[in-house]
């Protein structure tokens, strides 16, 4: 289907490139082969088109440089005077068309396969929000948030940066090998894009839309990616981590999760049953605040100009308790202040609110108990 020249050049250049891509360089300067059939086909297509471009470049630039050398005035004082040739024009219109057809055919067949989302074995609903991912296992009916776990000290150059700097998360998405996993993507606020290069999956997460993509991952391991669509301040800090387990281990993992959810709800009942002291809540509250709120409101509650309000001396954190609880639990519509009720437990909410009312010099001295939060849900 591809012309003879194509095939020959392809053979030559692809073999050079393959030799290259096996070297250590590939990891930092070429697409990766990835761990799915599709990702490897895409790599081939990339190398094929690159090879065509390199060949064309050598021919065109070769002719140019030769001409610049041989037809400069000192060597070639009398210019020729041809300036039109229909035949030549037809040739260099037609030949590129043929080359393009040679490129379009493999691209089309790969694309048809990529877009075949039918018959998945497992479906994950991925929801982006500023600046974290939520993974919902639709078949097992549970889900969780996944936040970047790189500490701010590393970002601000106060600590040495770790190997997985800004690519690591607290809770990775866990998937099985050799199953057709379907990803449904959507968003709670702005457009994000879920991208794992090793799966060759990049799908925009758009509010009001549910997009589809899929992958059948062949080997277990840990795979990383990042949000690929500018989504506001912490766009760079919205990594994706996927832990791929062999099938049996994955099934066990699902069972463990379900069990853990049971236990957590038992724990929640216990948390509600007791009365917490200010010191206890402040302690937990500080951690919750640093992990969830400090990107916007800053660790000392000073906020960032008019974009993110200061909580130190802020109207709501020093105002009536009920408004404060509502604001944190349901957020503010159409702003980056999201609803935290679905994301945090009763105890976490109670402690972070208590913390805001008593830290940063607010010192109101009042406390909210997990039970109150539970009742406000």
């Amino acid at each position, binding site marked *: 289907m591809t012309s003879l020249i194509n095939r020959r050049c392809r053979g030559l250049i692809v073999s050079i490139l393959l030799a290259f891509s096996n070297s250590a360089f590939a990891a930092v300067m070429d697409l990766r082969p990835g761990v799915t059939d599709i990702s490897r086909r895409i790599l081939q297509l990339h190398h094929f088109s690159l090879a065509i471009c390199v060949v064309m470049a050598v021919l065109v630039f070769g002719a*140019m440089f030769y001409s610049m050398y041989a037809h400069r005035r000192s060597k070639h004082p*009398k210019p020729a005077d041809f300036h039109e040739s229909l035949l030549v024009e037809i040739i260099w219109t037609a030949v590129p068309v043929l080359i393009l057809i040679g490129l379009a055919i493999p*691209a089309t067949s790969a694309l048809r396969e990529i877009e075949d989302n039918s018959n998945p074995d497992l479906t994950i609903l991925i929801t982006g929000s500023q600046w974290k991912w939520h993974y919902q296992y639709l078949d097992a009916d549970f889900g969780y948030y996944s936040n970047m776990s790189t500490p701010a000290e590393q970002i601000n150059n106060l600590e040495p940066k770790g190997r997985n700097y800004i690519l690591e998360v607290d809770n990775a998405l866990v998937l099985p090998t050799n199953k057709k996993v379907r990803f449904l993507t959507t968003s709670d606020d702005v*457009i994000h894009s879920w991208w794992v*290069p090793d799966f060759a999956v990049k799908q925009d997460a758009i509010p009001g839309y549910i997009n589809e993509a899929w992958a059948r991952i062949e080997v277990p391991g840990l795979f990383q990616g990042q949000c690929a669509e500018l989504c506001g301040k*912490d766009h*760079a800090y919205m990594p994706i981590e996927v832990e791929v387990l062999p099938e049996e281990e994955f099934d066990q993992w699902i069972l463990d999760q379900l069990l853990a959810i049971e236990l957590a709800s038992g724990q929640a009942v216990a948390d509600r049953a007791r009365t917490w002291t200010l010191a206890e809540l402040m302690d937990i509250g500080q951690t919750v605040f640093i992990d969830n709120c400090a990107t916007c409101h800053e660790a000392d509650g000073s906020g960032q100009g008019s974009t993110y309000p200061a909580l130190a001396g802020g109207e709501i954190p020093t105002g009536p308790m009920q408004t404060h609880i509502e604001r944190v639990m349901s957020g503010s519509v159409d702003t980056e202040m999201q609803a935290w009720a679905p994301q945090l437990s009763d105890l976490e909410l109670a402690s972070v609110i208590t913390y805001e009312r008593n830290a940063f010099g607010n010192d109101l001295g009042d406390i909210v108990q997990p039970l109150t939060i539970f009742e406000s849900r």
Partner: protein
Amino acid sequence: MAVTADHAIPNRSPLIAFLSRWLLTTNHKEIGTLYLCLSFTLFFIAGAMAMVIRLELFQPGIQFAEPLFYNQMVTMHGLLMVFGVVMPGFVGLANWLIPMMIGAPDMALPRLNNFSFWILPFAFGLLLSTLFMEGGAPNFGWTFYAPLSTTYGPPSTDFFILGVHLMGISSVLGAINIIVTIFNLRVEGMTLMKMPLFVWTWLITAFLLVMVMPVLAGAVTMMLTDRHFGTSFFSAVGGGDPVLFQHVFWFFGHPEVYILILPGFGIASQIIPTFARKKLFGYHSMVYATIAIAVLSFVVWGHHMFTTGMPLAAELFVMYATMLIAVPTGVKVFNWVATMWRGSMTFETPMLFAIGFVILFTIGGFSGLMLALVPVDFQYHDTFFVVAHFHYVLYPGAIFGIMSAVYYWLPKWTGNMYDERLGKLHFWIAIVAVNMTFFPMHFLGLAGMPRRIVDYSLQFADFNMVASIGAGMLGMSQLLFLYIVVKCIRGGEKASSRVWDSAEGLEWTLPSPAPLHTFTTPPKFPTPEEDYQHE
């Protein structure tokens, strides 16, 4: 005429005279100069923003720019370079050159011309003022996707919207003026198919502008009503559609990228024949190829949106149409090479920049072809590979195009030759720095670095450092350019009217510097060959 008015009132202070001359001028050459000065000024401002970006990306971690500020720099750099540098730069060249090339005394609508220019300082004043506002400048990228720019945009977004409206009005008026001038004021005997290619490419560009700038105006108007008047064109919560924004934006945006390059094609087609001392190869096919590119540019906007969940049929159509653009673009490149072939070449600065333009633009074209392939685009999209691609077509493309034009026609404008040694030095620094800045970005993108991120993981550190050093060099080299231009304006070896021994076209029949009013009586066309020989 402003100049005559000055004579009428001799006791005006020089400042008032200066201001009223430039504020009220209706002369195409003076307005051309104004456009070029604006473009040059904004080039340094937008360039300084690029320096902030590259400084922040010099190393992983946050060093110089907080994330929100970084996003503002990315946004303003893009907006200013596109709307403030390349577009006014090309319009400035059009103003200076089109009347002189077609043998007309001025643009057809001189007052409108003045108005189109003087809108712009206000437009960019508005845009730049957002940097000092509460909540900061727009921070959502030059593509300002909803809902990041609507529901979540900073308060300054409204100033941005107004600024875009003003630029749009200016561009449309300027484009109408150019179309009217070209259609009505050509000297007798200059049929369409005898127009210089710079005029042709600008004619087509002007049509693109008239067709797509209103679409951009529509997009920002919908944003404005979404933000303040309770509509939900782009808000999913209200039943609107965020992807609609992208369709509208790119329906403007894709032809826009050709607006940014077609006049550059025209410039290369003027300059290469002069220094190859040989007629342009395939004039007719050049014209048809430009038209083909312009027409195709209206049906390929979807290639910016492959990851938004387009249906298979749409993806295939857009992919094929995009690949097809490679054909007329290829024809142009081949024609330039054929023009050089068996010519008798010398390599003065304009020629060097034109050759740099052809080679590096072609590299950008190749990566464009790769990006057109949907399956692979899923890997390339929104990475530094794309950043590399469009900087290859815009920097060595549009900007080198403008620079080669400036070197080529500066002697005609000022009557002085520029400093050839410094010009060549400028070229060689620029070409090394451009490649050092943008080539490693291909690798970064392929290795997986998303674009528009303020911070990156450690495996990207080396190439980012190289790119930042290159960018520093590139930034510095523009100071040299400024020096060369200023030096040439202030004096230098006197230029002959022909300037370049085998330059063709009516503008070279005029004395250097070109007097304020030219072709008040129509010249003869085609120029008798002898006119050239008497220098």
